[in-house]
């Protein structure tokens, strides 16, 4: 009896500690959820699916893009068009955890929503591909905000679009930027992901063409945390820079940990990467000193430089105090708006009741093919394959613990 009591006390103490720890970590990466609003006063409600990593994987990107989608939907619901047409949107979240095997599951969950009119998603190229198969079969439009692998738009799926530029552009731009900065020899590291391999290929082709030298080629594993031996090899080879094609967060590509270990291991050469590392998570995990001097390319221009940017940043800040818009948020915002605008168009044309039918969904896809509006990332219109015509790559640099547009490349 006594020993039982001891155990219960011990159990309670342990639980109490766990909750204390929860409190310690409060504010960091809590998952948000927007409850679906019940349809009110005869309004027709449409669901906009959001797919992205929300609890594991590239969470920083996923959570940000979700907030941007929610903001777009909120603004749409307050707009005159929505009132005139008597329609309302809601966001349905699907957490793919950056896991390709989860993609069909969450995609099917989204497709099973009766009033689904389109999907904003997904983030990782490896997830976007299998999820896209489900949306394609269901005839639902899918607009990715962050999948940069080039061949995604060339799989014969006419329901697939993306607002971001691709690695076919990003890889060469990164190579050109590195060359322009005076680098001549490279260590090429990819994180074995669909995205990383695509990016490193695009980069290498251009790099060799420019006449650059490749000293080390390596593929790390997903979820790996120790890069000691790779760092040692890189230090022995002594390249001008280390090109890392992969994601930054520790649960997938671990670019942040890699950058930290490069600095700790005495490698002076800076890390150059793609959009996978261009976010705050990378800086958090690399530490301020580890991240300092890292260069990364990213589709799009800095939001604050865009005509619509200031209004977006202001609305974002007002809606989500304490959260800075970054990563692919602007692309998600534009993706959501592309769907919303198309829905308005179809609803005005055929009536709200017809939008969420197969014919309506088909009409949405057609409408997005012909869409043209001024988004946060610039003019949004798509080519025949579904790629954004407005494809710009910006090179960023970490200075004093923050990503800024690289002053030497974007004077």
């Amino acid at each position, binding site marked *: 009896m006594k020993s039982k009591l001891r155990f219960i006390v011990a159990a309670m*103490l342990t639980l109490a500690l766990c*909750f204390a720890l*929860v409190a310690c970590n409060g504010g960091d990466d809590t998952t948000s959820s927007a409850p679906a609003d019940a349809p009110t006063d005869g309004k027709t409600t449409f669901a906009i699916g959001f797919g992205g990593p929300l609890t594991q994987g590239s969470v920083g990107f996923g959570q940000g893009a979700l907030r941007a989608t929610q903001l777009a939907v909120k603004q749409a619901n307050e707009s005159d068009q929505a009132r005139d047409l008597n329609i309302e949107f809601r966001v349905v979240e699907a957490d793919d955890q950056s896991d390709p095997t989860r993609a069909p599951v969450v995609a099917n969950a989204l497709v099973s929503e009766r009033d689904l009119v389109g999907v904003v998603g997904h983030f990782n190229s490896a997830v976007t591909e299998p999820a896209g198969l489900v949306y394609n079969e269901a005839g639902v439009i899918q607009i990715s905000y962050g999948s940069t692998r080039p061949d995604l738009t060339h799989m014969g799926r006419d329901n697939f679009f993306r607002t971001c530029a691709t690695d076919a552009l990003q890889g060469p731009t990164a190579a050109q930027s590195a060359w322009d900065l005076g680098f001549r020899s490279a260590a090429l590291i990819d994180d074995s992901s669909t995205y990383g391999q695509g990016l490193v290929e695009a980069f290498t082709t251009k790099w060799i063409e420019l006449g650059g030298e490749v000293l080390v080629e390596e593929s790390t594993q997903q979820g790996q945390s120790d890069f000691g031996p790779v760092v040692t*090899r890189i230090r022995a080879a002594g390249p001008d820079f280390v090109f890392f094609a992969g994601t930054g967060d520790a649960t997938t590509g671990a670019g942040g940990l890699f950058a930290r270990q490069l600095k700790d291991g005495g490698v002076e050469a800076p890390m150059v990467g793609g959009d996978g590392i261009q976010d705050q998570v990378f800086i958090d995990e690399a*530490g301020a000193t580890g991240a300092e001097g890292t260069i990364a390319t990213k589709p799009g221009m800095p939001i604050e430089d865009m005509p619509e940017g200031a209004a977006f940043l202001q609305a974002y800040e007002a809606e989500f105090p304490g959260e800075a818009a970054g990563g692919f948020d602007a692309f998600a915002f534009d993706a959501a708006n592309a769907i919303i605008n198309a829905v308005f168009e179809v609803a005005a044309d055929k009536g709200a009741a017809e939008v969420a039918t197969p014919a309506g969904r088909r009409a949405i896809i057609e409408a997005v093919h012909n869409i043209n509006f001024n988004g946060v990332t610039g003019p949004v219109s798509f080519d025949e394959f579904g790629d954004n015509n407005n494809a710009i790559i910006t090179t960023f640099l970490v200075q004093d613990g923050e990503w800024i547009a690289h002053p030497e490349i974007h004077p």
Partner: protein
Amino acid sequence: MEFFLQLLVDGLTVGGLYALIALGFTMVYGILLMINFAHAEMFMTGGFIGYGMLNLFGNYTTIGIVSDALPFMSFLKSTQPFFTTTALGFIIMMILVFGTSAVLTGCLGMLIERFAYRPLRNSPRLCALISALGMSLFLQNFVLTFVGHRMVFPTPEFLANLDAINVFGYIFIAPIDMIIFCSALVLLFVLDRFVNKTKLGKAMRATAQDKDAAGLMGININSVIALTFFIGPALGAVAGTFFGMKYGIVTFNMGLFPGIKAFTAAVLGGIGNLRGAMLGGFLIGILEAMASGFVSISYRDVITFAVLILILIFRPGGLLGESVVEKV
């Protein structure tokens, strides 16, 4: 040569962590003949508790949140510089952090043994195995849901200001690596003495040899097993906290790879044998470093496991393990 030595340093540090985790696997196997799959999660939980404590002592943001909720904790604000910048403060902080993490994780290990394994002790071994898998999933998802998928902590200033030890102008030994390696050696030595020289250690060895006979000789089997489930996770927690300090982050799934590697280390050294686990841990660490340094990191696991298979062909019981006749 320098290249080789640097890889050796890399390997020994990681190997030290593997050895600490491997002990937990091997101790439990030695006594219960059960592979405790939840042990990798003890490593993870220990890392989170250690990191929570580190943040509590050294991170203004966390201290702010805590002292808003519990005003009496606000004294931490004034002690923060002492803990993070001075040598004495840093050492005290380390003792507090590692002590708390080890004791709490040890208690958690005992709890798990009491509720997840003890009721199944006389069931087929498969049941305990599945229970362990379940525990592992439960802990991972518990941490993911209630704590978050990761926790970061800026390196304490004192540690960041220490220069890397530089041998021959080429070999870098980071201070934290030095601390990890030395602490691992000390802990392994203490544990070895404890098991081989003390009465409790003798009781543990007796229980490992034959549970029932040991019980008849007046050894309290339950408390010996509970003790095993305290020591293993406590060592795992130390490894987890070191892991976090080395890489600057703890994540809810960080137990996966080190867990598999440490288990491999335990098998390589001869599962059930303490010194074997220590040896295996260091060996696996060095092997990995050499394989990824001289060949390629993509071939790291291929080479490591090829060596494991080779060794098991010639010594099926592992390097230091004795081939035990299968108990029926």
